[in-house]
């Protein structure tokens, strides 16, 4: 199966860099540790709503680990670079749909990051802060589904960023715009309901809460799986967008003559 093959190859490619990724994990761990410490500090003199200090620690720690499955995936799925080198026209000529091809590859990346980043980072937090874990199997199941949908949304967003680079050659700026917005609106550091009015509205109408906030809420047991309907809706919306973008891109390349 092509999907499994592409994913496996990309997973294996990453394995070579395990040791340098270890240093990266330490950095990522420190980032999350700082955020947790801030909430502990705030919790000393404030009530932290339905979460409580304990819940907030889990909230931030889980979010920090999740970043490796959502926000920290390959910039534009590598399309920006292949546009610059001209590789893109070759990729479009393959008998597989470009979106399917790149998405399959990226799942390998995400799975690698799950094993070598998400798990180790979360394990350390687990022991360091003696985190509470869900008791019911169904919670794990729905969290996994939520994570997969979140990863898929992020893949789509990065694919669209890559498509734009065909017109602007540079699409790093879009990657950073996405990064900045998701930092503010995905609720990875501060739960969305605590955002000031305008930003709360903005967040609610964006896909960002579905890549961090709701996932973590399901994991913590504050949200039922019905919220995943929203994730699915966003996934469908983005899939349509990606397919449309590919056909526009194909036309443009044909006009240019490759």
């Amino acid at each position: 199966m092509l999907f499994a093959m592409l994913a496996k190859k990309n997973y294996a490619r990453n394995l070579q860099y395990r040791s340098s990724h270890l240093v990266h994990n330490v950095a990522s761990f420190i980032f999350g540790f700082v955020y947790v410490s801030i909430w502990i500090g705030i919790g000393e003199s404030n009530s932290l709503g339905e979460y409580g200090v304990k819940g907030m620690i889990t909230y931030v720690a889980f979010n920090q680990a999740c970043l490796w499955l959502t926000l920290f995936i390959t910039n534009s799925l590598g399309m920006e670079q292949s546009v610059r080198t001209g590789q893109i026209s070759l990729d479009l000529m393959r008998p597989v749909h470009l979106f399917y091809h790149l998405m399959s590859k990226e799942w390998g990346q995400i799975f690698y990051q799950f094993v070598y980043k998400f798990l180790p980072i979360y394990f350390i937090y687990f022991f360091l802060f003696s985190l509470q874990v869900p008791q019911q199997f169904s919670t794990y199941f729905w969290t996994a589904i939520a994570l997969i949908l979140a990863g898929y949304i992020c893949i789509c967003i990065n694919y669209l960023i890559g498509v734009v680079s065909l017109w602007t050659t540079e699409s790093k700026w879009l990657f950073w715009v996405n990064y900045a917005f998701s930092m503010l609106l995905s609720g990875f550091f501060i739960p969305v309901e605590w955002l000031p009015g305008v930003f709360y509205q903005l967040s609610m109408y964006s896909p960002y809460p579905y890549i961090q906030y709701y996932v973590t809420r399901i994991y913590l047991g504050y949200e039922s799986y019905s919220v995943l309907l929203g994730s699915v809706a966003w996934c469908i919306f983005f899939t349509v967008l990606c397919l449309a973008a590919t056909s526009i891109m194909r036309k443009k390349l044909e006009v240019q003559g490759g």
Partner: protein
Amino acid sequence: MEMRMYFMLIRASIKSRLQYKFNFIFSMLMAMLLNVSEFLMIAFVLLKFNSIQGWSIYEVGYLYSVILLSKTLYRTFASDVHHLEKYLVSGDLDSFFIRPIPILLTLMSQNFFLLIGELLQGTFIILICIQHFHSIGQVDLWIIPITILIILAGSIILFSIGLATSTLGFWLTRVEMLQNLTEDAAMNAVRYPLSLYPNWLKGIFLTILPLGFINYLPALYILKQDVGIWIIGATIMVACLCLWLSLRFWKIGLSRYQSTGS
């Protein structure tokens, strides 16, 4: 003389940059957006809860902008010290050796980039904070020269840490991930009062990565009067020591240089 040379190279660097105006402006706007959103992230939390361990939003804003302005100075005037890895991988460092000026100076002057966004944002926030402290009588106007002094010392400390990390590249070649730890993660951490952290982490920021001397310790004197003015002297001493050590280390690294094609 060296200074004159350095500014001449900086001028050449700016002129080169301006050849790509669109890119120049765009990356500036992007950096601004990123920084603003980073700051908003903290601001939202403080707006909701008013203070962290007795540090008000203005006090945290002061910590934040001192470190931001120090970083702005460091990255503006020594941009490519942070990108030494690129020169090591491509072998472009070779051509720096055949010029009659210090190699570090050449490296510092490459790809000069004025971080206008950071500069404006940092100055804006720090002025608001200082204005607030002054209006409630928390500080007198001495805060201004002292703040400038610690920002300068801070930029030297950050420069030294950046240089030392890059210099490790002479042995390891790839240091990007390490920089993520010693520069990005460390700077992120000291935006907040160090008292939040357990002793081991606090210890790191007061010893091997002495970023605590840039904003937290001076703020204890300037804003809280918890410690004496000597802490400002200590900050300057630490800056000098870091600079000296990192320059020594750089020299050792250079003599280890293997060039590419090996």
